[in-house]
């Protein structure tokens, strides 16, 4: 079974086209048969080609006549409501595929922004950002935090219900009220589509010309351990991880 992608256009080579026709005609008739059997419904197919004056049909000449009569007896509107030709069918396919494309782009963008977010956490991301990128990262951070809050609150509820000995820690770790969303910039609708974000480092590249110098203070800030992390009662069993990035060194005197 060949799995080569076939170009959607008329096959100009005569013998290739003939072979293709025979194969696909056979396959099509088989599919009609399967549909009819599996779903217990009436179906028929009529195929005209340049290779034969007589049409290829399924289930049979008589069967087609019966089903076609049944079809034509239906009110005009019922017939045409779900009737398609190449034009309408292809347009429908294009629309569906377009919707899938938009969704996929959005998913990819989320993934890329998450990657950027993780890079930022360890002060590694030094690509220039424009407003759109910043907003998208900001949004991603918010969503991620929301997920954490949700997870923590369900966990804590369970811990408290179970009345476990770690209840004191649970109280400590109760999700704080989520911080206010960044005030100055309204986060745009997440449908912002960008084509620039496909470098192999998965870091969003910006089309705006940003002053890189402007970036420095911000990252310096991030990398310095002045950050107000949680209190001393925090144990951080980092276990076997041999890579401890800068900002975690806070906890390893």
């Amino acid at each position, binding site marked *: 079974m060949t799995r080569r992608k076939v170009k959607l256009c008329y096959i100009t080579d005569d013998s290739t086209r003939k072979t293709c026709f025979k194969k696909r005609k056979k396959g099509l008739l088989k599919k009609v048969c399967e*549909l009819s059997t*599996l779903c217990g419904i009436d179906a028929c197919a009529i195929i005209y080609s340049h290779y034969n004056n007589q049409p290829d049909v399924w289930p049979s000449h008589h069967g087609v006549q019966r089903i076609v009569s049944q079809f034509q007896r239906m009110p005009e509107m019922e017939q045409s409501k779900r009737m398609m030709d190449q034009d309408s069918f292809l*347009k429908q396919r294009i629309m569906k595929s377009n919707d899938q494309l938009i969704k996929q782009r959005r998913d990819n963008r989320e993934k890329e922004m998450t990657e950027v977010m993780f890079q930022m956490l360890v002060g590694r991301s030094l690509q220039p950002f424009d407003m759109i990128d910043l907003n998208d990262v900001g949004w991603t951070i918010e969503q991620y935090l929301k997920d954490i809050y949700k997870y923590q609150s369900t966990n804590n509820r369970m811990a408290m219900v179970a009345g476990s000995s770690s209840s004191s820690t649970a109280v400590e770790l109760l999700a704080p009220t989520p911080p206010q969303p960044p005030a100055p*910039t309204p986060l745009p609708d997440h449908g912002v589509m960008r084509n620039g974000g496909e470098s192999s480092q998965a870091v969003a590249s910006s089309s705006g010309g940003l002053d890189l110098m402007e970036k420095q203070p911000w990252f310096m800030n991030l990398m310095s351990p002045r950050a107000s*992390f949680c209190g001393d009662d925090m144990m951080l069993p980092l276990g076997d991880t041999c890579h401890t990035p800068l900002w975690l060194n806070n906890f390893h005197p």
Partner: protein
Amino acid sequence: MMRKSKGRQKVEMVKMPNESNLQVTFSKRRSGLFKKASELCTLCGADVAIVVFSPGKKVFSFGHPCVESVVDRFLTRNPPPTSGTMQLIVAHRNAGVRDLNMQLTQVLNQLEAKKKRGEELTKMRKASIRQCWWQAPIEELNQPQLEHLKVSLEELKKNVAKQAGKLLIQSSAPPQ
């Protein structure tokens, strides 16, 4: 073999016992059938008509050049008209279909590329988890780790907001 769906698995050729599965199967297979018919017409220049009744007694049909003309040709056993005008009409219609197929191909290619990219990104993240514990799914982190991550993210968020604010001020540039 562990599979999520029954694709690429053998299906017994009898009427499906489960009613809702039957509905879904009808919907999917009908769609696939029309797709195959469309491809047959495009690739091999065939004229085709397919008529299908749904489990709910609705009728779906696909035809090229159109269901009616093919059905009429079948019923009356008349050869298709080949007048000069007819040929013009056919040529015009085929040109339109050609365009649509090109459009569709474009979109499908883009979709495939984006899908691949998506898989790449997922793979990358999975690979990073070994060295970067904070990239693991939230559910797999212990409480201290989670807390640490949370606080760092909150800090990062503030910084991003600050940076965004700076940009905003910059972009509403001072008057010359």
